[in-house]
């Protein structure tokens, strides 16, 4: 079990000094981070920057889920790994980098494919869930498990020159199914391996996911309505924030009378699996 503390140690105070003197953050927010556990699902392009900055910031326990191993073609964007770690489990490589940066962060390695049989138990053990995955099936799985486990879900995605960021299942906002009740036709789904991606694009989205998770943990975003942030690297206005619907009372997952009450078969539901690449 994750043990909470009532005070920071002196080494922690030295390390986090620039956040401790930050107006509107300070010792209380730093304690909130220390006593928070977060799960980063995916140690790829999004997870790389997200997990590095969460580990550095002072999150008490950080879980990393990835079943894949480091490949040379990952390294243009997955800066948490390095060349010597080719073939190593991405979850372990990410954990190693975080430990070198900040040994105060307890990193839990989940070297597995997240699926209906194991997801709920893992998700229930964390306070905030971060969707840094690369496929539709896992996105629905994470949504449903987060709704069932009553966890906020910080969802990021990136492809080519574009990125998207949303917090689902949080403070009366929508879940993923409120926006997208049915999965997209599989021929419309492109991953970074097939569509390509400029490396720094998931880097930017992953940093923003880390920020949103920190804001949830510390209450910095108390008053915000549900939004989606759109990023487009080749537009002259790169970012756009759009106002989203609230939770839909008739959503089959998070609505007033949900018909889904446990995890389903997401591979069948989406017509594609989590390990299609």
């Amino acid at each position, binding site marked *: 079990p994750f043990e909470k503390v009532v005070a920071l140690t002196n080494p922690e105070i030295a390390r986090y000094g620039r956040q401790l003197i930050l107006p509107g953050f300070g010792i209380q927010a730093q304690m909130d981070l220390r006593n928070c556990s977060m799960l980063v699902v995916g140690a790829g392009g999004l997870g790389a920057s997200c997990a590095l900055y969460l580990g550095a910031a002072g999150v008490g326990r950080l879980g990393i889920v990835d079943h894949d191993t480091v490949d040379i073609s990952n390294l243009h964007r997955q800066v948490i790994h390095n060349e010597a770690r080719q073939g190593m489990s991405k979850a372990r490589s990410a954990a190693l980098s975080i430990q070198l940066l900040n040994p105060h962060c307890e990193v839990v390695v989940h070297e597995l494919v997240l699926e209906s049989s194991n997801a709920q138990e893992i998700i229930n053990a964390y306070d905030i869930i971060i969707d840094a*995955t690369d496929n539709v099936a896992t996105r629905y799985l994470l949504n449903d498990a987060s709704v069932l486990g009553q966890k906020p879900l910080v969802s990021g995605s990136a492809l080519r020159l*574009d990125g*998207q960021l949303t917090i689902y299942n949080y403070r009366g906002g929508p879940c993923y199914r409120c926006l997208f009740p049915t*999965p997209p036709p599989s021929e419309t789904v492109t*991953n970074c391996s097939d*569509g390509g991606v400029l490396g720094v694009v998931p880097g930017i989205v992953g940093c923003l996911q880390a920020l949103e998770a920190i804001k949830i943990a510390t209450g910095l975003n108390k008053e915000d309505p549900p939004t989606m942030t759109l990023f487009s690297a080749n537009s002259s206005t790169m970012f756009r924030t*759009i*106002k989203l*619907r609230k939770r839909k009372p008739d959503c089959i997952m998070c609505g007033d009378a949900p018909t889904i009450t446990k995890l389903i078969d997401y591979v069948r539901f989406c017509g594609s699996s989590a390990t299609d690449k």
Partner: protein
Amino acid sequence: MSQSDATLRIELQFSGGMELLFDNQKTIHAKVPAFFPLDTSAEDKHAATIRDLISWTASNLLKERPELFIGTDGSVRSGILVLVNGADWELEGELEYELEDRDEIVFISTLHGG
């Protein structure tokens, strides 16, 4: 100006890969008929809605593969989010929203990569 000539100036935007279906254009300034159906003999014309805009866009602007844009029920396919003047279209009435002159309508394909 008769009903059949009236048009609305609509700024259409495409993002998240949608633009690939529209000849890589991220923005199209379109003149959209103000009333539908277009058949001039039709007696029961109604003010253009987003539902009309979707089929009009598919017929007049789409360059390829309509099944990647339109769904089965006259709406967009699953996985496309529509924005009306910067807000989720669900806040504006979804398919039944009546277009106004100078509206900005955005079609976003959701991304799943990471």
